[in-house]
């Protein structure tokens, strides 16, 4: 039980000492979202000065933990050592990343996961926290689920073609186009839409639940009259 001001970098980011770069980046992005200017979650809880101070500490935490040497020095200060388990997790992650399809790697490297965090390694992508922050919400705000172009925009930002998805999922380009346009009436039934949507979302690496939430919104909007 600690005050936020007394938390170490791991505690501040809600990660364990064995967290790999991917986990650190995810945690960093959530922390940036939480402590951003006019944060909804912080409303009435802390002052602007406190918010700014914690955000600076988050930036410092990110820089330190993403740098192997700095992290080692910091761990020594805390009296913890990066366990073998942590190193193994990182190696496993690197290995998976190497084996991933080229499109998935490029998506990851672009840091355009709809969930926000860049899933690629910072050192490989050359993306620093500033650029990461940009993808979070300043220059590239997260897509709106009620945006009819939601799927298409995400796919294009990730640089994945419909043809590529079609080859991987065995769903025709025509159907994928209908899916993106919200032409749900052209599918044999709702179950097909949901199934195709899942395959689509999983392939381009976006959150399936959010894609389904988008579908629910668009489905209702497109049906004109609510369906029972």
């Amino acid at each position, binding site marked *: 039980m600690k005050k936020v001001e007394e938390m170490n970098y791991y505690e501040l980011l809600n990660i*364990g000492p064995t967290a790999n770069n991917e986990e650190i980046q995810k945690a960093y992005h959530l922390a940036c979202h939480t402590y951003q200017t006019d944060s*909804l979650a912080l409303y*009435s809880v802390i002052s602007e000065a406190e918010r700014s101070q914690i955000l600076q500490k988050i930036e410092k935490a990110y820089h330190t933990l993403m740098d192997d040497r700095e992290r080692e020095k910091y761990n020594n200060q805390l009296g913890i050592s990066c366990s073998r388990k942590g190193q193994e997790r990182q190696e496993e992650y690197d290995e998976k990343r190497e084996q991933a399809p080229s499109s998935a790697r490029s998506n990851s490297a672009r840091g355009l996961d709809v969930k926000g965090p860049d899933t690629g390694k910072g050192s490989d992508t050359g993306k620093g926290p500033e650029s990461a922050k940009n993808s979070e919400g300043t220059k590239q705000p997260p897509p*709106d*689920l009620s945006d009819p172009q939601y799927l298409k925009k995400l796919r294009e930002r990730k640089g994945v073609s419909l043809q590529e998805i079609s080859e991987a999922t065995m769903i025709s380009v025509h159907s994928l186009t209908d899916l993106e346009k919200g032409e749900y009436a052209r599918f044999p039934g709702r179950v097909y839409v949901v199934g195709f949507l899942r395959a689509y979302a999983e392939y381009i690496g976006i959150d399936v639940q959010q894609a389904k939430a988008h579908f629910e919104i668009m489905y209702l909007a497109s049906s004109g009259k609510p369906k029972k």
Partner: protein
Amino acid sequence: MLARFFQKSEDENKQAENKKVEKIDKKIWAVAGGKGGTGKSIIASSIAVQLARRGKRVVIIDADLGSGNLHTYLGVTPTTITLADFLRDRTANLSDTLTNTQYENLFLISDANEVLGLANISSQIKEKLIQQIKELDFEYIILDVGAGTAYNNLDFFLISDQGLLVAVPEPTSIENMYRFIRCCLNRKLMRRFQDSPYQPLIEKAAYPKEAGGFRTVYELVEKIYQLDQAAAEAMVDEILKFKPRLIMNQVRSQTDIQAGDSIRDVTRKYLGVNLNYIGFVTYDDHVKLSARKRVPLFQEYPNSGAAVCIRNIVNRFLG
């Protein structure tokens, strides 16, 4: 002790991140939120209907004393006998006020009345009501708690096995939800430690802006830890038992959805409470339409976005 607390909190947090809601077999669920108009009643009634549709024997109680309108969301015509009859001692048993709904195994205890002063019941009547709520013979008892931090609302929330907080992505809703969490925790601690020598210190935590008041629960625990480690440990255990769950309602964007994660984090770090973010419900005009028609959302629009989201939340609870 402090390290132990933190470790427990960390474990809880990881659970929340993984969005794994443990299966439960306890039966009282309270739906609250601190702010009016966040969708508490529609979510409470929809959860009750969904449980009933899954074959559970359910009663939903309109615990929004003086402002109840659950009957409208459930499409039940106001009956002659309501909760007011029990509260005014016109009937001895709460079970006498049960009303049928269109679902065979779902019952309502309605608060549809215009009785002056019903929102201000005495503590004796409230205790009697709580006792009889606990004795109701149902698999699930859903309490639709009113807005605000009146003791009635806090106490109804605190008797539940599962406390669900409904918030919408607006500053006023979030502010009131934090206020509700703080007040609930203070109320819980004051009740648990009412005969303790540290009761005056706990009271100070309830007035954070007064001189000598504690701004956060951490400061309170720290102070008691300096005086009595065992008492502080008991207090931490009590704090850890308080695990409300968050539902973000009326979300329209990914940012709204992600706000739930941030709120969970802020609640843990600044309020010392393990809030579990269990899901979101999309903004959906069908909710309003079903209310206008005075029929349950699940009856009229079972495949609407909001209904799907609520069904997902219930399914995750039931497994």
